[in-house]
């Protein structure tokens, strides 16, 4: 176990999950269009690892997954890494600051990660000089991409959570909350 509560077992599971998902993505998922667009599992994976493991591991995973995608697909190195680093960090901060427990959280985080990835990619490509003004078709592709990624977020969340279960870092806030619910002594109502 490292100082930040991230164990070697967790790192190994995250690394294995990242490699499997990236190769499954580019080998299978990318070749099966849904409503004319491709589901992109990579930003979902990064966001969910951030949501489960915190901002630091989320950012590092984002960087590594982005680099792997850029290397495997012979794309401009650094573009995907930059976007995924920010997605992983942001979702990790969401966990650290809000610790959302609602059932819809994975869906909303997945939608936000997909939107950040697609819009971030578009902005980066515009800045890098790709000749493609904003058109209705492009916007349609982005919106459809967000929709299909959001649909894929639920099974992806279950896979990521199931794969990392048992190796996740302890969360002090969750521990406190559990204690507050289960022991009457800490409840303000019981004190009054």
């Amino acid at each position, binding site marked *: 176990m490292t100082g*930040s509560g991230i164990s070697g077992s967790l790192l190994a599971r995250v690394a294995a999950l990242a490699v499997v998902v990236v*190769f*499954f*993505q*580019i*080998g*299978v*998922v*990318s*070749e*099966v*269009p*849904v409503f*004319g*667009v*491709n*589901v*992109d599992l*990579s930003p979902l994976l990064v966001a969910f690892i951030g949501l489960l493991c915190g*901002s*630091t591991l989320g*950012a*590092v995973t*984002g*960087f590594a997954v*982005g*680099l792997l995608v*850029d*290397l*495997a*697909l*012979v*794309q*401009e*190195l*650094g*573009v995907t*890494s*930059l976007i995924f*680093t*920010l997605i992983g*960090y942001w979702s990790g901060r969401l966990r650290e600051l809000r610790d959302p427990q609602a059932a819809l959280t994975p869906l909303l985080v997945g939608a936000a990660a997909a939107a950040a*990835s*697609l819009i971030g*990619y*578009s902005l980066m*490509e515009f800045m*890098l000089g*790709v*000749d*493609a*003004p*904003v*058109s*209705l*078709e*492009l916007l349609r*592709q*982005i919106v459809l*991409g967000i929709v299909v990624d959001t649909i894929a977020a639920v099974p992806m969340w279950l896979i990521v959570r199931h794969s990392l279960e048992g190796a996740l870092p302890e969360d002090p806030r969750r521990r406190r909350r559990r204690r507050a619910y289960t022991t009457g002594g800490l409840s303000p109502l019981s004190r009054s």
Partner: protein
Amino acid sequence: MYDKTVRRRRAVLALLVVLSLLLLTAYFGEAPDGRLHAVQRDFLTVVSPVQNGANKALKPVRDLFGWFGETLHAKGQRDELLKQVGKLRRELVADQSEKRTYHELLGMFHLDQLSVSDYRPVTATVVDKSPNIWYSTVTIDAGEAAGVRDNDPVINGEGLVGKVAEVASDGAVVDLITDSTMGVSARIGKANATGIVQPKVGEPNDLLLQYLPSTASAVPGEYVVTSGTVASPDDSLYPPGILIGQVTSVNEESAYKSVNVHPVVNLHNLDVVQVLTAGAGTRAANVSSLAASLPAGQSSGTAGEQLASTAAEG
């Protein structure tokens, strides 16, 4: 303790962002044979066999997913194709007699054109595909070892797929015709007018045939095929007559006419492709190198198109 954690978290983020920006800057700053590009090629060489194996193992899964999508489109396609069959049957009868006359004339004037049969086709399986809308590339499992070279044309049973952009020993990356970097010299079947097919800006799945003479006639439904010329010295010399797409609409806003073209190849569902390789010393290789050696600016009459006609050799 809290401050230390916050500082470390921010330092990690800053480090990763700076590293990404450095990679991006270095990648854009270096030549295609630079160190980072070489690392990518090496990575491709290493993972190609793995990707190939994974692709074969996961093919049933891909086929299963693909089956659902294809079934949904099958009915509409069948009705459309039945209409086309009737039309094409009538055209075939007329074309067969024209073809006979054409070959007689070619023989009479000792003309010869480069064709697909002058190339050595290397069959390859698509093992990877880029997932986002900005990169229209696929990775195939044939590389230098099979004779594949940069810029080799790539086709499948339906028509033109793209050209080879990057080669490793056992794999290669193919730019699809919808990639923003592509430009293919093409002509409309009946009008015989030539132009350049490029991806339609902002519509990643469609193409635009540009720089057609304003007098050229084009009607929706006509087929667009490769013209057998190159658009720039580093372009691929596609053999003439390879089907690219079908005209969907015609634009006449400027001095040049342009037509919207829908690719005939289903680029979302590529499985097996053929790379047209030209062995050293063959006729196809000689014509390709002749095309590449022509100085920039030689125009064939259509703007931006550099002439390197494949008929020049005959």
